[in-house]
């Protein structure tokens, strides 16, 4: 593994870093030390906890805040990563999240102000970059682990974060709690079911009713981003989320037409929840773009994988969770970083497979487990980041009434009815 040579920043590089840091308003020595020790952390020479303790007081003194503590990467996982069990993405994924915040701390970031985030990156870049370089380089040198990375999803190995889900249909009992949670979390208008649970019967799968919770699939090769004329529908570079920029979208609905899954919900009229009742934290992401919560009138909306949570704006403990996952008491929805072998979607899939072992003593040619997985419309080549455990609905599958109806949960199934009412109301006086 790494030697001391490449952990310590060589003198002439250090000189350049010093110059870069000198250009910022902050303590140059502190920045350099932070960077050096950050590299030690990734090399396993220094524990995260020690790193935190060592600098806490000085950071608070310099920047009047220190929000590093809230999301310290688990030292054990990190050590495991160094030991060779972890994937390449493991270290750098955590590092990205942590260092983003470090950069923010350096700048005295105000989370309420999206604009300031951009200037953070600009002005405080030098200090943040030093540390990023330190962590990133070790991550890059660390050994990858092909079997674990990409256990779910498309199996590509990648750096950084790739948010995705494993949804276990065998666990889902159709209670619709996830739909309600999503509806409330994102202030959706009636019938805009970003999360939608099908109850269906399939003659090929026996008599019983099956369930399929459907989010946006956050396709890696998403047709919706290709067709958008103005680039409002886009894939966020840092973590693969497919989002809609509500400030740019012209409402042409081409994304909706091109999506094979029918997950888009246009805001045909005034949203049920007015803008004034929604915090900016829900709406503005870490790049300062308006992509979260329900869309304004005339603009396209769909499941965002709770982008506000992923950016830490709902609190650090909400990172890596979604509202639907939290609401699910049946352990059906597992959200997390697909590039991290220990993330909930990957771990669930692995553990579920291990629990469904096949009888290989009598039939040695069988595969190890009896678990079948699928992605929706895999043959479309959209490369979804949602993997389902269970049996895919066949062409003959038909949606049926589930044990819990949408109405019982205060939800609307067929949005057309709402829209027709709205149209009538609009025809009369102002709505």
């Amino acid at each position, binding site marked *: 593994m790494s030697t001391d040579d490449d952990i310590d920043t060589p003198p002439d590089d250090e000189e350049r870093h010093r110059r870069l840091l000198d250009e910022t308003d902050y303590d140059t020595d502190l920045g350099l030390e932070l960077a050096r020790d950050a590299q030690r952390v990734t090399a396993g020479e220094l524990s995260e906890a020690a790193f935190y303790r060592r600098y806490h007081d000085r950071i608070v003194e310099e920047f009047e805040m220190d929000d590093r503590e809230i999301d310290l990467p688990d030292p054990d996982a990190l050590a495991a990563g160094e030991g060779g069990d972890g994937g390449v993405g493991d270290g750098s994924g955590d590092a990205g999240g942590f260092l983003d915040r470090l950069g923010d701390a350096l700048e005295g970031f105000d989370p309420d102000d999206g604009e300031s985030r951009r200037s953070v990156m600009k002005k405080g870049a030098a200090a943040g970059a030093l540390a990023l370089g330190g962590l990133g380089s070790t991550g890059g040198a660390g050994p990858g682990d092909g079997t674990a990375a990409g256990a779910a999803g498309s199996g590509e190995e990648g750096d950084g974060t790739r948010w995705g889900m494993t949804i276990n249909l065998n666990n889902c009992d159709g209670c619709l709690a996830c739909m309600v949670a999503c509806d409330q979390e994102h202030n959706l208008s009636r019938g805009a079911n970003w999360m939608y649970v099908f109850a269906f019967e399939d003659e090929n799968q026996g008599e019983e009713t099956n369930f399929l919770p459907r989010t946006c699939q956050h396709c890696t090769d998403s047709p919706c981003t*290709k067709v958008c004329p*103005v680039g409002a529908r886009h894939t966020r570079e840092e973590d693969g989320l497919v989002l809609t920029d509500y400030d740019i979208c012209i409402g042409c609905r081409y994304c909706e037409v091109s999506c094979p899954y029918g997950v888009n919900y246009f805001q045909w009229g005034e949203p049920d929840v007015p803008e004034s009742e929604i915090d900016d934290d829900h709406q503005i992401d870490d790049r300062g773009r308006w992509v979260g919560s329900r869309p304004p*009138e005339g603009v396209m909306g769909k499941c965002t994988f709770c982008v506000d949570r992923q950016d830490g704006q709902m609190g650090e403990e909400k990172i890596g969770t979604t509202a639907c996952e939290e609401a699910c008491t049946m352990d059906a929805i597992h959200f997390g970083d697909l590039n991290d072998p220990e993330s909930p979607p990957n771990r669930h899939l692995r553990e579920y497979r291990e629990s469904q072992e096949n009888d290989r003593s009598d039939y040695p040619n069988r595969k190890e487990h009896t678990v079948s997985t699928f992605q929706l419309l895999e043959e479309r080549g959209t490369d979804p980041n949602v993997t389902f455990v269970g049996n895919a609905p066949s062409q003959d599958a038909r949606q049926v009434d589930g044990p819990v109806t949408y109405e019982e949960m205060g939800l609307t199934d067929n949005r057309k009815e709402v829209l027709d009412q709205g149209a009538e109301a609009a025809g009369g006086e102002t709505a």
Partner: protein
Amino acid sequence: MSVDVTGVDRDTLVRPIRTVSTRYLAALSVALGMIGVWLFFYLQQLRHGLIVTNLADWGSGGGVPWGLYIGAFIWWVGIAHGGIILSAAVRLLGMDTYQPVARLAELLTIAALTCAGIFILIHVGRPDRLVTSVIPAWPTRVQWSPLMWDVTVITAYFVLTATYLGLTIRYDLHRLRNRLPNRLDPIYDVLLVGYSETEDAVVERMVWWIAFAIIIMAPLLLHGGVIPWLFALLPSMAGWAGGVQGPSFLSIALTSAVSGIIIVAAAFRYAYGWAELIPEAVFRGLGQWLGFFSLLFLWLQLQQVITGIFAAPTTLQHATEVKIATPLYWVAIGVVALAMLYVFAASLRPSLFSLPLLVALSVGVLAGTLIEKVLFVVEGLMHAHFDLYAGVPGAYTPSAVELSALVGTVGIVVLFFLVVSKVIPVVELHAIEDHGEVEG
């Protein structure tokens, strides 16, 4: 088949500019009324949003997100192709018979493209961003988005056609200037800036190249290209995907384009007593084109139906079965077939020819092609490949707001011709005088 209209004098040519009849004023108020009806409804849409249309989300929502607006958009672009067919026939192929209606056809192109643009404007949820979002995104999104290709090609088509008109009109204006009203002088001064008779030969060559550029771009790459590709490239909708959409769209465009020209030309002939200037032979010829394009249209429909029902994938089969079970589809096919049969019969037996009948059939063809386009968009969206939803196939009937836009855009085309025909000669001087016969 060449018809000599060189006996017609220049006063006949400028007749529309120099007269204002009560009938004209009546037509003007009808056109303004039509536009007013639409504006009334459109105001509702601007106030309340697209909720006032009958559109909705596909999927769990049980609706279709694109409807009459998109169907009508394609339809108007299709009609716009009349201009290039006629200009190309005259300019590139030397078919002088159609010279008297060539400029009318070019004007129809401009008007129809304007209406197509209006449908885009009213289709989108945020019309206020149509420029501020589209222009900055153009350099990157034109690399990918089929909708951006459309924006690009339609702009190019519009600009090329208008340039063509702007250059060819100079010859006529210069020579007819003494017959044109003085109060419009500022307009003529601008249009004639820097004119000298020596430029005629150069301009003649330039407009030949414009016609050449448009004839490749407009039919082959616009209506046989980027417009069908809006749909053909999306495998998510069973009825849309596939290479046949290009030729099929083009056949529909050409059919409706010729119908449009027949109607406009007949209207001017009737209104200004231009039987001499636009003789019956022009309409007989246009009728034959209409018949030929209708034949292509029907043939390509047959291709789609037969591939859709023989051994197609389930969703396509279902979409096709629904299509051929829709009575309106057969109305569309029926009127086009009727027009085709009539013009072929009339060319075998010339005595069967009647201009009013041809105009009536052309109106029918325009209605038929509009129906086909709207059905194509809507039914395509109803039969998504992923049909686990109870809400698929969705339901859609155009609302009054949407229908009013059709009325409004027809009004805009009428208004456009009424105004333009008072300013510039809508028939080229070349139609009545051979080239070179230059005198003041």
